[in-house]
């Protein structure tokens, strides 16, 4: 059953400009951030929004969370129209923004959490249970008494996530939650999100520029460009559709290996340092793989999918080509 349903959502931002020499004449500049976007998201889903900068991902998230009003269109989130900001609706959602803090800058984290307890009217027992759970999962006991302004980015993000889950929201909007984080912190955040999605059965809507986030967390992706939806579906299917070939990487130990690599079948071959990379379509895969295994040691061969980033680039390129034709 759909927990989020949005139909034909559009959002225009209009900038009014005054200036010399025509001071009294207004110049209106309109930019369409979201263009006729419709989606349905089921309860418990973990959906990733992908797209380049300025594609409209964050704007769409802000519309669904009720922060901004759309110019056109209808949305129903948990049975409410988000931008009416009904308090019963707001009690069931949370938003985490990687580049902004919702916690009070000068306060120790625990005081911000205590305040959110009052803001969301969380019963004391539930509050302590959730807080203890978050503190344990995110390993952040020592952060509770630390002021936000004294925390590192990773520590701050842990606190932001804790703050967002205290009231057991049904939907969590995550706007680039791992931005600026080191590999270990990003990994721990991803593990946490996966875990919380499984245990609390909450719906997570994620935007990220890091493919690692999307690949690890989201089965379903929605790709947006210029405010329009260009793909909505399974990430694996996306790869099959736009990049059906496999990438084979062979470790080339010596000159002899490089010669053997040069004689291999397959059109798309290249050598980078001591790695030979070859791309093969599914129909030729069996043939090429058996040839490789005849010539190279198995432990030196890796067969993998095309990187998601490249797949996404291809999606955008194809879209641009088709719109240029039209």
């Amino acid at each position, binding site marked *: 059953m759909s927990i989020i349903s949005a139909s034909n959502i559009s959002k225009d931002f209009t900038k009014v400009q005054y200036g010399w020499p025509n001071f009294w004449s207004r110049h209106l500049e309109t930019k369409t951030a979201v263009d006729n976007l419709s989606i349905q998201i089921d309860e418990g889903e973990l959906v990733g929004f992908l797209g380049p900068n300025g594609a409209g991902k964050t704007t769409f998230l802000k519309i669904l969370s009720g*922060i901004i009003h759309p110019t056109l269109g209808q949305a129903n989130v948990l049975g409410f129209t988000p931008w009416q900001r009904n308090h019963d609706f707001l009690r069931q959602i949370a938003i985490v923004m990687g580049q902004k803090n919702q916690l009070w800058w000068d306060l120790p984290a625990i005081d911000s959490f205590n*305040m959110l307890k009052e*803001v969301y009217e969380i019963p004391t027992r539930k509050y302590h249970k959730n807080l203890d759970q978050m503190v344990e999962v995110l390993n952040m006991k020592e952060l509770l008494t630390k002021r936000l302004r004294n925390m590192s980015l990773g520590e701050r993000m842990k606190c932001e996530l804790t703050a967002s889950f205290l009231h057991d929201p049904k939907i969590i909007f995550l706007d680039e939650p791992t931005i600026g984080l080191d590999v270990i912190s990003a990994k721990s955040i991803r593990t946490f999100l996966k875990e919380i999605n499984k245990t609390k059965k909450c719906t997570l809507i994620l935007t990220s520029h890091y493919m690692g986030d999307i690949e690890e967390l989201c089965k379903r992706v929605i790709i947006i460009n210029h405010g329009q939806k260009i793909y909505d579906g399974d990430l694996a299917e996306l790869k099959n559709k736009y990049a059906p070939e496999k990438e084979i990487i062979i470790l080339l130990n010596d000159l002899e290996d490089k010669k053997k690599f040069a004689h291999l079948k397959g059109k798309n071959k290249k050598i980078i340092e001591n790695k030979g990379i070859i791309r093969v379509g599914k129909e030729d895969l069996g043939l090429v793989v058996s040839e490789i295994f005849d010539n190279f040691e198995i432990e030196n061969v890796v067969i993998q999918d095309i990187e998601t980033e490249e797949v996404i680039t291809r999606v955008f390129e194809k879209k641009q080509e088709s719109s240029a034709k039209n």
Partner: protein
Amino acid sequence: MIKYLKINWILFKNAYIRDSKIPGVILSNVTFHLLDIAVTIVFFKIIFSNISELAGWNFYQVLFLYAFAKVIISINNGWFRGGLKDFATELIRRGDYDFYLIKPVDSMILVSISQPRIYNFIAALFEIGICFYAVWAGHIQIGLINFLWFLYLSFFGLILYYFLSILTIVPTFWFIRLWSLQDLMGRLSQVMRYPSGVFPPFIRTILMTVFPIVAVAYLPVYTLFYPPKMEYIIYIALITIVFGILANFIWQIGNKRYSSASS
């Protein structure tokens, strides 16, 4: 209501903890505040060395009015100004207002109470002291009925000042870079120190009706010194409600207009 009181309590507690760690901030602000009061009192002294009354009010009555106006301003500044001051520069311009909008509380109240300032309350204590001094030194006789009505009108004056502050800051939703708005109320509140009779009739009408900043302090103090006028008692309650509805209404329109800075 209880929810807002609890939130307020946490914010006050933290403001106290924060400010008590840097006592210099409190000390310097209170000192600056008292210096400002001292200079104004000297200014009044100079005026009253040349005249005996100002619009029918003697020196001690004017001193009481000035100190009382400062009490209203200090309590409002201590409670709400910190949050409202940052509204234009931080919340709207940088988009941090997003987080206020997604909380199940009134965003106008949450923004207003988000940054209380303890030193304003300390300054208010000194100003209340000046009020007592003015009554004592001026041998002003105050009846119990006058005092009770004074408390009633003061309560509405305090709230009216808050709504007027909101109205001066709310255009930020439309004019993001109009940062001077955060100082506008400070400038306008300068007129609260004078009896309404000093203003020409047209200006007085504006300051009592269109933007009733003079009514905030003048009506309660008048009721304390003179026989209470029923029209004042009804009027202050009425304009407080009207301006409350107006402030809330424009704030809600502003919320619709809010476009949120990009992340």
